[in-house]
């Protein structure tokens, strides 16, 4: 019984981590007023670059940084289109969602002899598990806390981003730019600069989210590795009311629902629900919560509206 709960909690953490990174990135971007629908594409390129650099260098941390940087390059396109050229942010984001997987598959074929799957990274060259072997295998605490370092990193980043957004000058400026760019501009804040910083940060985080999938959940890249996580993260931003801690909770809730479904699907639990119906629960939950519990008023006032300086 207790070990079941521990496994559910552990699975929740494992499942939510890539979503948390990505959702945190989305929060930053949207706080500054730029919708980032391209998170999925940025995650994909992050997953590919993470797996590839990790495979060739053998160092997961370099791989993680490279993944973030690669996704940041993609975010730069989104930033230029939506900030400088005042393009529709949803459209440029969608373009990123096509571009990300396209570039990943194209490059994958170059690096891995024409296959769209990267080669697997050995266990000791993946992101380390700081508490591996600390508790007895499959004991209560082992099941919960024997996680990859990325899991802990996600929570540390949440705290940092919360601090930056609410307690520093840069964060408050980001919010000002997202709420009322004209007012911010009249006070001498460079709306363009702040938005560029925010969008690039969001790309970096989405890239890390994708890489955490490739470097800790599994150990290789496949085109299907990122399939929908970016969009779930997008929902988590809204459900989390555009707050880093809220978005993190939303991701944990989704991960928790998945973990619970996996627990229920175990034939030994003896719940006789068809696996197809069970698999829907996390998604239905997301829709219900989005419908019922989130007011529209929480979005940054200027999100999705391009700012043009006159």
């Amino acid at each position: 019984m207790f070990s079941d709960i521990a496994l559910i909690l552990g699975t929740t953490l494992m499942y939510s981590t890539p979503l948390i990174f990505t959702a945190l990135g989305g929060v930053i971007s949207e706080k500054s007023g730029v919708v980032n629908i391209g998170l999925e594409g940025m995650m994909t390129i992050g997953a590919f670059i993470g797996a590839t650099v990790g495979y060739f260098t053998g160092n997961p941390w370099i791989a993680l940084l490279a993944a973030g940087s690669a996704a940041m390059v993609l975010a730069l396109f989104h930033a230029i289109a939506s900030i400088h050229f005042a393009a529709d942010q949803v459209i440029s984001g969608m373009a990123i969602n096509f571009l990300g997987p396209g570039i990943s598959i194209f490059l994958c074929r170059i690096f891995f002899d024409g296959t769209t799957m990267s080669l697997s990274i050995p266990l000791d060259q993946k992101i380390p598990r700081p508490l591996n072997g600390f508790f007895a295998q499959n004991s209560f605490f082992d099941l919960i806390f024997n996680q990859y370092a990325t899991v802990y990193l996600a929570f540390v980043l949440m705290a940092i981003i919360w601090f930056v957004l609410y307690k520093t000058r840069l964060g408050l400026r980001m919010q000002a730019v997202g709420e009322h760019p004209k007012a911010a501009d009249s006070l001498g804040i460079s709306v363009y600069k702040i938005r560029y910083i925010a969008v690039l940060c969001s790309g970096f985080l989405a890239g890390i989210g994708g890489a955490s999938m490739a470097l800790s959940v599994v150990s290789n890249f496949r085109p299907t590795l990122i399939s929908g996580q970016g969009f779930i993260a997008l929902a988590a931003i809204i459900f989390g009311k555009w707050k880093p801690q809220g978005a993190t909770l939303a991701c944990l809730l989704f991960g928790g629902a998945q973990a619970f479904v996996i627990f229920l699907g175990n034939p030994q639990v003896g719940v006789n629900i068809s696996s197809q119906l069970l698999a829907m629960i996390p998604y239905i939950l997301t829709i219900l919560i989005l419908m019922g519990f989130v007011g529209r008023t929480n979005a940054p006032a200027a999100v999705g509206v391009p700012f043009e300086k006159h």
Partner: protein
Amino acid sequence: MLKILLLFSFTLTTLTFFLSTQSITEAKDIKIGMVTDVGGINDQSFNQSAWEGLKRAKSELAIKVSYQESKQDADYASNLETLMDGKNDLIWGIGFKMSDKILAAAKQNPKQKYAIIDVGYEKTPANLIGVLFKSEEPCFLVGYIAGKMSKSGTIGFVGGIKVPLIQVFQYGYMAGAKFANPKIKIIDQYAESFTDAAKGKAIANQMFKQGADIIFAAAGSVGDGVIEAAKEQKKMAIGVDRDQNSLAPDTVITSAMKRVDHAIFNVAKDLKAGVYKGGTTITYSLKDGGVDIAPSTSKHVPANILKEVDNLKLDIIKGKLVPPATENDYNKFLKSHKL
């Protein structure tokens, strides 16, 4: 200037003439094209295997081959059309996802020959071949290996989506395991996804916690997560469709293989000899090498078990042993063997 232009256009015309006559002479060659499903040509699975079969046909039978990749389900019809315009003698559809589209195309173009992997129709048109694989046979063998090699007496099965095509893998595997060790406990769970690797990993972790030490995944890239969990916990995993040992050389002890390349090559060979078995469903099995267990099996599985597996293979080929493919047959199998 005019002269140069004239000369240039003259060269062009002769060149075009030369090229066109060449393509006329080449048109006598047999041409085969294939349409991949959304997995793409290098999916490390059946699409890639199919293309390897065609490439073999190219080098050994001098057949002209080509492929069209589908990026989404909506591409199938137009890709089939493209290959037809390319005057292919035979057009392959790879994967059951294309079953409706290729049937419609076959009915619309009665003179064009078609064939499809993983589909058997109730009524096949005369210009279409369905190709099926007896997946339960290699799954029975890997199940037998799992039953013999499990130290804990508990093994797991992770399925992709609960459809008959995947359940065949489950029941073949379960029957093999029970046949090896009647007391074996088998935990099965479906991910209801072919892509969610994290879910596969979580399901595998849960099975390992319940004491399983070998898990067989027939679940596309969900299986990546299963293999990863086995690698982390130093347990064993069994691969599917192709030899997946390269994913985790110390973890994947064997794989249940479906030799799509074999089927594609055989049909091409027939076609070259002027034979086309349109209107029928061809079933590949252990007998003709269309399904098998991975060559890498000998790396991890002890020789005495391998020998037993070889004997079982012979029994299956001779028809003495019939691995079940459905739940009903599975229950009957257990009863008849008193397991």
